């Protein structure tokens, strides 16, 4: 690491820093107010009331009722619970699930596991922008379809899906509709009633709340099995001693995010657009995801002839934290299933860079990134055997 270098964090889709006021709200529940909310004595009552207040805050943030909010250990648990819970509780009605081909692995691997248990899964295709077509959802519905699960916004390319339309179709057919809104909650307006959403997953650390915390909204009409069997917590649907500081932190972070949503999303959209335009000035670069229907904080660009991990390593040297959908992203050497589903050719899929901005991001950060990235792309292109001569320097 170079000393005294500028640090620019542009991986807010991976995780976000906790807001200082959220840390402050959590601390008392890590110190004196440590009571188990299920107990009867006074310090337990403080915890219990804090959890109740947190539940109201989360409910208000997504247009739900308090008793429809269940706290979990994160987006992954919420997704697993929603999908497995509905499938196990409703397999007498049918064993068919509809999902998309660009879901987060918390959804897609859960579906694949259920296939091994005898369920059938339809993985809907997406267009080149990563958009799912409500028509496709409609035409995939069968008599034995018990669940539709489609993400609200994609974590890699930022595309926002037509959730309200899909919700309407599901409601008309009486099929439970779950959405993985981990990347959307706190970033775009959501109303579960208006959008006909039956279940919604969210994760605290994606909106400046704590890691290891999440929630699942479960509408009143949904029948589902627990994923966590055990104690009577969460109205007997999600066992386990409540993570009180985590719950308090998640709820406050969400309330603050939603309160500032309009203002902050305008600001981020401005930064995002400037970043995108600047990066696309680099020759042979392409924007991934939808040009307009996308998260205000997401930029995803592919640079031909170079590979993502080496871009990231060089960015890290310059103090810039970012992400890629490249092969080297995982130990499996598979290129991103999302970019592949969008039809990005295999030869160039490896050269993608995801920059996700956040509350901390400034105009100067964008300037800095727009100065550094072209240099790095050029340096790696000079090194690559694929680069055409006219792009070498």
């Amino acid at each position: 690491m170079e000393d005294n270098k500028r640090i620019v964090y542009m991986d807010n889709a991976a995780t976000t820093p906790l807001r200082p006021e959220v840390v402050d709200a959590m601390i008392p529940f890590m110190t004196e107010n440590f009571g188990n909310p299920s107990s009867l004595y006074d310090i337990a009552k403080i915890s219990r009331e804090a959890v109740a207040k947190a539940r109201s805050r989360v409910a208000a943030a997504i247009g739900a009722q308090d008793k429809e909010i269940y706290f979990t250990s994160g987006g992954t648990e919420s997704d697993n619970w929603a999908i497995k819970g509905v499938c196990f509780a409703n397999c007498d009605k049918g064993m068919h699930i509809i999902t998309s081909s660009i879901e987060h692995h918390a959804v897609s691997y859960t579906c694949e596991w259920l296939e091994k248990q005898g369920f059938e899964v339809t993985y809907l295709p997406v267009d080149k922008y990563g958009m799912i077509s409500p028509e496709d959802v409609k035409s995939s519905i069968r008599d034995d379809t018990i669940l539709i699960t489609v993400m609200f916004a994609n974590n890699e390319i930022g595309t926002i899906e037509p959730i309200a339309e899909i919700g309407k179709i599901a409601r008309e057919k009486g099929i439970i509709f779950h959405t993985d809104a981990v990347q959307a909650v706190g970033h775009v307006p959501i109303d579960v009633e208006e959008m006909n959403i039956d279940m919604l997953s969210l994760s605290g650390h994606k909106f400046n709340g704590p890691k290891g915390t999440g929630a699942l909204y479960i509408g009143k009409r949904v029948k589902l099995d627990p994923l966590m069997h055990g104690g009577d917590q969460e109205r007997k649907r999600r066992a386990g001693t409540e993570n009180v500081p985590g719950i308090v932190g998640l709820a406050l972070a969400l309330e603050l995010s939603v309160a500032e949503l309009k203002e902050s999303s305008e600001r981020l959209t401005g930064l995002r657009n400037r970043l995108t335009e600047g990066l696309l000035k680099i020759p042979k670069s392409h924007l991934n995801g939808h040009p307009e229907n996308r998260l205000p904080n997401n930029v995803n660009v592919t640079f031909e002839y170079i590979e993502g991990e080496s871009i990231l390593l060089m960015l890290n040297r310059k103090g810039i934290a970012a992400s890629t959908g490249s092969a080297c992203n995982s130990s499996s050497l598979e290129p991103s299933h999302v970019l592949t589903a969008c039809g990005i050719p295999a030869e160039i899929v490896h050269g993608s860079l995801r920059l996700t901005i956040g509350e901390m991001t400034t105009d100067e950060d964008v300037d800095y990134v727009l100065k550094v990235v072209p240099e790095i792309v050029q340096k790696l292109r000079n090194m690559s055997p694929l680069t055409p001569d006219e792009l070498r320097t």
Partner: protein
Amino acid sequence: MKLDYSNKVMDHFENPRNQGTIENADGIGEEGNPQCGDIMKIYIRVLDNRISDVKFQTFGCGAAIASSSMATELIKGKTLEEAWELSNKAVVSALEGLPPQKVHCSVLAEDAIHKAINDYRVKQGLIPWEEKAGKEPHHH
């Protein structure tokens, strides 16, 4: 991307040795393909059966670039026989280790060097050398 590269890897990634091309090289070897996310191209100049100069071009991750840089360093000035004997294991250990899922990059370097040497041999009208049986394969 849980990669913790050694300082050696990072040094060779950030300051690659022998990066570039050799005009009218005596031998050229290319290995890998873009779908898999890595390609290595090795250029050699041969003088008196010795590798008097070597350059590489690489498309790939940090380990691929560092492996190319290290492998070229290790064969520079060596006889062709010595260079042929360079194993991917030697590259890994010179780099002070590679994460398990990145070892294939060092295999790529070994393979590209072999291809360059055999390209030279064929151009000289010699029979190409054969890969040892049981050699660690370069998985894709």
